[in-house]
């Protein structure tokens, strides 16, 4: 199927639910304003089913309705996995055979962000979702710098460890903190090392848009629910190429 619509309880009904707050005192006009917004979002008819005054001059709304947009699945832009998902065994084997040394990975959570659970899930032996982290791979040499690492320290360590890849995590996104930090990081690597010598730059975190890699100056972005094996497979693919 290439064209689909949202589904409430009947094919093609197009039903969606929306909620939001408007900075308006609750009255009929505010309700009308909520319907206007819903209409602009493409809901027609829009059923205003809940309106609740909050504090001074704010009202919360819930709207249900039929949205008239079509979704064309052919036109969807996603970063598809364009590399084979390998087993730990295969990964170790490829690195051993083709690289003939351990592949060096440096990981960190940069800026003031102190959320290490995500990067630890990728790097630590413990891993996540039943998969062991990169430390578990015999042929990977992992340096996990922890959280709140400054960009200069990261560059320094990457150099010291002769990093093939640098893995950066960013979880706090308020005021686009993750984007600022990622840009600062990739700029620092561009400045510090010539193109051919730069490690592969990878960022990850639950609120990244995976399509933004080029814009942020990194090689790849991993989002919600990433598993270590995906990352390891990507490393092999990007740094070594197809196993054979």
């Amino acid at each position, binding site marked *: 199927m290439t064209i689909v619509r949202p589904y409430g309880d009947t094919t093609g009904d197009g*039903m969606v639910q929306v909620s939001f707050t408007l900075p308006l005192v609750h009255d009929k006009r505010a309700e009308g304003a909520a319907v206007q917004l819903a209409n602009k979002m493409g809901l027609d008819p829009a059923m205003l089913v809940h309106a609740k005054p909050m504090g001074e001059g704010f009202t919360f709304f819930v709207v249900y309705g039929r949205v008239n947009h079509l979704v064309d699945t052919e036109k969807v832009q996603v970063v598809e996995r364009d590399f084979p998902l390998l087993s730990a065994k295969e990964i170790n084997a490829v690195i051993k055979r083709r690289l003939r040394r351990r592949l060096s990975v440096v990981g960190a959570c940069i800026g003031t962000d102190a959320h290490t659970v995500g990067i630890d899930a990728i790097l630590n032996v413990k891993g996540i979702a039943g998969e062991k982290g990169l430390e578990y791979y015999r042929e990977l040499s992992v340096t996990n710098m922890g959280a709140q690492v400054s960009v200069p320290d990261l560059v320094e360590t990457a150099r010291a460890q002769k990093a093939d890849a640098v893995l950066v995590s960013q979880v706090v996104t308020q005021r686009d903190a993750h984007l600022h930090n990622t840009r600062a990081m990739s700029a620092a690597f561009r400045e510090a090392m010539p193109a051919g010598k730069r490690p592969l730059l990878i960022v990850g975190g639950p609120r990244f848009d995976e399509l933004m890699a080029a814009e942020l100056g990194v090689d790849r972005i991993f989002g919600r629910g990433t598993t270590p094996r995906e990352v390891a497979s990507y490393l092999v693919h990007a740094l070594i190429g197809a196993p054979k």
Partner: protein
Amino acid sequence: MQKLGLDPTVVRRARELAARAGQPVVDLARSHTTVSVERAVLRLAGVRGADSDGIPWVNRLVDAVVADVGLSHGVAVPVFDALRREGLDDVTVLAQKAAAGAVRFGVPEKKGELTAARRAAGRAATAGLKVVDRRRVERERLIKRYGDAPRRPWIYLIVATGDIFEDIPQAQAAARAGADVIAVIRSTGQSLLDYVPEGATREGFAGTYATQENFRLMRAALDETSRELGRYVRLTNYASGLCMPEMAVLAGLERLDMMLNDSMYGILFRDINPIRTFVDQRFSRQVHARAGIIINTGEDNYLTTADAVEAAHTVTVSQLLNEFFAHEAGLADWQLGLGHAFEINPELPESFRLELAHALLARELFPDAPLKWMPPTKHMTGDVFRGNLLDGFFNLVGALTGQGILLVGMMTEAVVTPWLSDRDIALQNVRYVLNGAGNLHEDFVPAPGGFIQSRAHEVLGEAVELLERIVDDTLLEAIADGTFGIMKRPADRGKGLDGVAKHAEDYFNPVTEVLA
């Protein structure tokens, strides 16, 4: 374990009063018949199909009999007498001829003819009941083969798309998602139709029609899903409205597993005549008893029109009456899905503890009945976030008080008939509560003499008082006065009264002969 410390003498007295209040109505039901009871008999006796306008042949046949001899003798004898006279062996063909005006009906005067007609009717009806019996055995076999619902409460979900062919995949999806019971909602208008539509249907408002073919299609689909899941998924519909007896028969023939079937719902919420309802109700319950079908009563509905605290005792009274009528009609305790609901205004202080008190009272009054616990509806609003929360606390009361059938609440209750995603969110809610707090009842011990116990005693006391008044004034008067759900329904008003007749001396009904 008894947690409320109810006084057994008070409980016994409540039951005695309910029996005394109900008995006159039973007498009424035993001495009357209705067009739908007679059509139900003919359905069991083998009349099938409908004319080109969609009017079932049973309706045409009963109308023809009534036109010639009235209803008071029952239709079985006139029909089977005519069948013999016409030299036919297919009652449907007879119905078609009768509809064309080509048959006259009467009660044979000759003893021999009468006996022959009765015997033929008996044979035909018994054949119909045999199918019902086979279905029951089949159900038991399938439950054994596929396995039963994994736990109590059974998880009960509704589908209501208004199109049987959308309902089917939604029902299957709901079953896969964890439903133990699927209820297919029927169109808003059906209860007032004095016939059962025929065939598969794709129309209706807030549900599609209950028809024999829709029953068959849905049961077959759920059998398939039961096999796939290794767990027998039950199917429910409605034995209510003007065709209550026929619905019961069709449910028995198509192996439905549960039926909404209340002694007063049609009176109160569909303005159907009380006498009509009580007569239909008794017959339908006799059939359910035979079919091994679990009935669900409708006390929950009272709390959508009346206040759930003020009227709590009316629920108890109605449950006691429903129990009495059900036992009288031959239903066993395991078949009594007595209804009650989580409908107290959530703004009320102690609302949750009041809910617990009421739910536990029902539980301890009817320890062997698989109570049907209904979710909040009246105080649900368009605030779906709050809605899901209330449903969670409803689920918790269900778990804490050992309810048998949990009708899963939907966060969109005040907005739309359930969406696919609403059911998914609702089931996730149920799973969380049952999984995380399903055994919390072990630690739930209402403080002796505390709020919950006192409230339960109070409600039981009020119920006894009300029953005393009903015994004095008669149940029909109580219904006329708006005792239940604040709906006032006098016995001489409401739809379908013209389809009721007092039994003539020679009234004969081959089905009740067997079921009585």
